[in-house]
Every structure is written in structure tokens, then in C-alpha cells.
């Protein structure tokens, strides 16, 4: 397939019917919460769109995000949208290796300077001049900085790229940071999640292709359409939460009855993600439906917020030391205050009272 084909042509060449394409557009429009009429607009726009160049960089990551994205085979929506783009560099999938791979990246960057979409997964280590992640002798931070210069927009896929994720977790030995910490002068879309829901990734890309712009973002740079509500807001177990019915262990009566997992540490109430609405594995289910509470994976520092199995309302502190010290100090000062008062009294008792004079 040629890079210069329009998306519509490219799809036709692959034998994908107009019907299947419309279905994809409708589904994507609905995921993006667009009005139904927008599906046609999107189809028209996508048919006309030239396949944009995409450069996909991976740093401190586990490939979970890539797994999520490519989980299933053609003709899923994911593979479809990827065929619709010119993925010019992606270490995990590309055939080229070594200097050839790097050359491909450089060429793609040069040819599409100012127009390509930069997708990043993984955090970027900046500790010790970035030595903790290098590719072909160049540090991640340097590659990213350079690649970002020519990008039209950057998509940080996964919590590591979006917020630093697990590499950033305490004590963060490599000085890992989020992509947005490095790329300051380009629009950055954070598609967080560990990993993110695949439809969320494709949805963002489809939005970019359709409208030529990035979707509206929340204060953490996440697209509002997917990250506008908490898991808890849309959780099917919510009625049990409201009724005060909670599973106490993973195999008790409550768990079997599908009661709320709050007590088991579910962080759904403070986690903004699309799991409860878009779901996973082509809409099959999401973690809470499988009986496990939300870990809060789409939120910054989710790894450092105490145990996944501690309820949200409990505190996250190290130990009883501070409390012990406080108690001892309070007791000491209390005793001291009483001793001072008693001393004053004893002192006054020993003094002679002034003799009363008659009026």
C-alpha cells in the first residue's frame, strides 16, 4: 500500500466494505460521544484523509499498552485504524532493526516534518543525563526532544507516558518523568491507563484524523470524552454501594452476589477512565465485572497511594511512630502543666496570707 493513498482507497484495497467502514465510523463516533449524524461526516472525512505518518516511540514501558492496542486480529477496529495510518516507526512491530530502523525514523521525520503524529508509551528517565534508557547510543530524552520538534501533536499512551506511571513510582531511581514534562511546546494528549482502553487510543486518533485537531482535554491533559466520569459514576455495582452492601473478601457471599468492592480497596470513586462504559475486549467486561476493584491505574501516582486492597477512606501512612511520639509528648506536656500549677499552689500555700484590715 502506498503512503499517498487516501484512507478510503487504502481500505478499499484491503477489501474492506463500505458497510464495515460505516460501522466503524458509527462506533467510533459513539465512543467519542458525537451526535449520530457525525458518523457520516467522519466517514467522509476519513475517506478523504491522507494516511498521516505516525511515529511511535517506546521508553520505560512494559509493552502492555502496545499489547492492548494490538491485542486482536484484523479486521478489528484497532488494526483497521492502524492500517489507515502510516506507522513509520514502532520498534515492537517493525521488521527493521538496528541502524535501518533508526534510519527509517529519521527519514519519516524528515519527510513529514511538522505533520507527523508522535505517539509515545513509557516514561522518560532524566536521571544521570538520561542514561537509564538509550537507543542506538542516544538517550530517550534526547530522541524525544528532537522527535517532538517536528510533530504536529503528541499522544502519550498509557499512564507511564502520561504521568510517569510505575517507573516514576517511589523511589523513582531513574528520575522517570511524563512526556509532558519534556514536550512543552506541542499539544500533548494523555491517554492514561495501565494499559489504556484500546478504543480510547483509536478514538483519539480517529478524532485527530477527522477534525485535524485533538479532542477537548481535562486538567490532566486527558480527553474529556473518555475521562470525564469516574469508574464509580458509571459502575454497575453502584446500587450496592448506595445500599451499603459491600463484599468483605473476594470469595464471600457479597462477592458472589456482585456487591460493591469499596471495602476491598476499589479506587473507582476517584478514577477517571472509560472502563465502565467502553469496557475491554470488544465490550466484554471490565475489571470490576471480573470481581476485582479498580486500582486507579489511569490516575497519576496510582502506584504510590497505599495498598490496592485498602479502602479509599483509610489513610496512607507509614506507621505509628508519629502517633507514639505525639502521645508521649502530649502526656509529658500535660504532666508538666499540672506540675507547674501545683508548684504555684504549694508556693502560695506556704506564703502568709495578708491579714485583713477592718473597714
Amino acid at each position, binding site marked *: 500500500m502506498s503512503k499517498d493513498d487516501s484512507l478510503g482507497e487504502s481500505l478499499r484495497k484491503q477489501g474492506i466494505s463500505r458497510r464495515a467502514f460505516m460501522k466503524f465510523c458509527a462506533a467510533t463516533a459513539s465512543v467519542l460521544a458525537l451526535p449520530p449524524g457525525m458518523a457520516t461526516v467522519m466517514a467522509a472525512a476519513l475517506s478523504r484523509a491522507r494516511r498521516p505518518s505516525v511515529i511511535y516511540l517506546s521508553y520505560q514501558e512494559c509493552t502492555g499498552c502496545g499489547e492492548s492496542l494490538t491485542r486482536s486480529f484484523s479486521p478489528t477496529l484497532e488494526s483497521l485504524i492502524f492500517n489507515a495510518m502510516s506507522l513509520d516507526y514502532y520498534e515492537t512491530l517493525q521488521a527493521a532493526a538496528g541502524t535501518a530502523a533508526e534510519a527509517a525514523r529519521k527519514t519519516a521525520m524528515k519527510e513529514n516534518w511538522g505533520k507527523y503524529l508522535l505517539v509515545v508509551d513509557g516514561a522518560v528517565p532524566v536521571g544521570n543525563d538520561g542514561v537509564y534508557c538509550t537507543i542506538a547510543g542516544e538517550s530517550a530524552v534526547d530522541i524525544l526532544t528532537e522527535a517532538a520538534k517536528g510533530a504536529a501533536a503528541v499522544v502519550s499512551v498509557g499512564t507511564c507516558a502520561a504521568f510517569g506511571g510505575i517507573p516514576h513510582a517511589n523511589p523513582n531511581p531513574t528520575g522517570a518523568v511524563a512526556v509532558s514534562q519534556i514536550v512543552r511546546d506541542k499539544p500533548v494528549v494523555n491517554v492514561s491507563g495501565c494499559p489504556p482502553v484500546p478504543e480510547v487510543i483509536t478514538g483519539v486518533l480517529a478524532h485527530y484524523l477527522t477534525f485535524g485537531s485533538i479532542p477537548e482535554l481535562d486538567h490532566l491533559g486527558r480527553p474529556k470524552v473518555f475521562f470525564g466520569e469516574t469508574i464509580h459514576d458509571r459502575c454497575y455495582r453502584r446500587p450496592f454501594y448506595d445500599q451499603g452492601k459491600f463484599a468483605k473478601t473476594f470469595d464471600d457471599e457479597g462477592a458472589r452476589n456482585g456487591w460493591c468492592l469499596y471495602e476491598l480497596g476499589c479506587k473507582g470513586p476517584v478514577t477517571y477512565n472509560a472502563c465502565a462504559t467502553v469496557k475491554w475486549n470488544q465490550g466484554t467486561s471490565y475489571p470490576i465485572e471480573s470481581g476485582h476493584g479498580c486500582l486507579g491505574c489511569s490516575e497519576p501516582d496510582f502506584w504510590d497511594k497505599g495498598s490496592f486492597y485498602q479502602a479509599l477512606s483509610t489513610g496512607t501512612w507509614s506507621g505509628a511512630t508519629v502517633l507514639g511520639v505525639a502521645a508521649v509528648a502530649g502526656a509529658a506536656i500535660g504532666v508538666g502543666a*499540672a506540675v507547674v500549677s501545683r508548684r504555684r499552689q504549694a508556693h502560695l500555700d506556704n506564703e502568709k496570707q495578708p491579714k485583713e484590715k477592718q473597714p
Partner: protein
Amino acid sequence: MNLLDFARGPALEWSFAIFLFGVLWRLLGILLLRRVHDYSEPRAHRAALGALQAIVRRTWPRKEFRARTTYGLAISYVFHVGLAIVVFGFVPHILLIRSLLGVSWPGLPGAVIYFSAVVTLAALVMALIRRLTHPVLKLLSNFDDYFSWAVTIAPLVTGLLAVAHYGGRYENLLAVHILSVELLFIWFPFGKLMHAVLFVLARGQTGVVYGRRGAST
């Protein structure tokens, strides 16, 4: 660290530390002052019983006093019971208590909690209005009274806002709610809220004296 992490982490730890620190300071500062022995011959050896009776019985007024106190007491009963329901009946609160003390009990449905909170809120507002208008209360009240009122109503207001998702993102509302509770904990030992502990002492003492005298506690 965002606001919620701060509220759930260091702020919670420090507020409990200050709470413990202050309560011990104040209690020991009172209890270790000097005591005089009472040599009088008791009419009845009922000191302990008297103390217990006073501690329990002073919870409601004698019938002779009811005519003049019912309105004020009804308000205070409503908000105390309401506070108890909200504080000790809501599962997230119980879980916090369990994580601290290891004890827990069954919670109440959300609807009961929200209803109690609204009623409690109304009763607290009425208590404030009464304080601002009743000549005796106006004269007695000082900063402590108003501030303690404010830190008591604050968690209710912030809690209800969090439940209603009103006024900000949920995690921030939740953080503000937790912070307001922490403010209550921090203020508790230093102001009148300490009455929740001191009532045992004051009532008990009078109970001991009256019990020995064989007088009605």
C-alpha cells in the same frame, strides 16, 4: 502529590498526632492537679454508683426542667444523634475507624446517611441561630463556640458536596472533606469539642459527691 494524597496521607497522620497530643495534654493537665480527700462520713457508700448514674442520667433533663429546655435540647439531640449516625454509620467512615482501631460494625445504607446529614446540618444551623439570638447564649458565647460550630458543620457540608459532586472534581471535594475532618480532629482537644471526653469527668465528679451524700444525681 495531589490534594487527596495529602489529605489521606500526611495530613491525616498529623491530625491524629495532634489530636492525641492535645487530648493527653489537656486530660493530664486536668487530672493531675491536686485533689483533696473528702473525710466526711458518706451517707451511702454509693460513690461509684453515683458517678455512673450521673454520667448516664445527665444525658436527658429531669422532667421538672423540661418545659424550659426542650427546644434547645431537641436541637442538640438531633445533631448529636445525626452526627453519630453519619460518623459511625457510613461504611467509608467505619473502614477508617477499622484501619485505626481494628474494630468495625455493619454500616447503614447511603440514603439513611444522606438524610441524617441533611437533618444534622439543619439542626446545626438552628443551633447557631439560637446561639446568635438567645440572650443567655449570646452573652456566654465566645470564639470557641463559633469556631467549634464551624469545624463541626464543615465536614457535613463538604461531605454532602462530595456526595453530590457539587463544586469541583470529586477527588478534590473528597480531599476537602477529609481535610475538614482533620481540622475537626486538630481543634478537638483545644476547644469545647473536648466536652465529648470531659463530660465523663464533670458528671462523674458530681455523681461521686452526690452519691456519697445520698442525694439525687
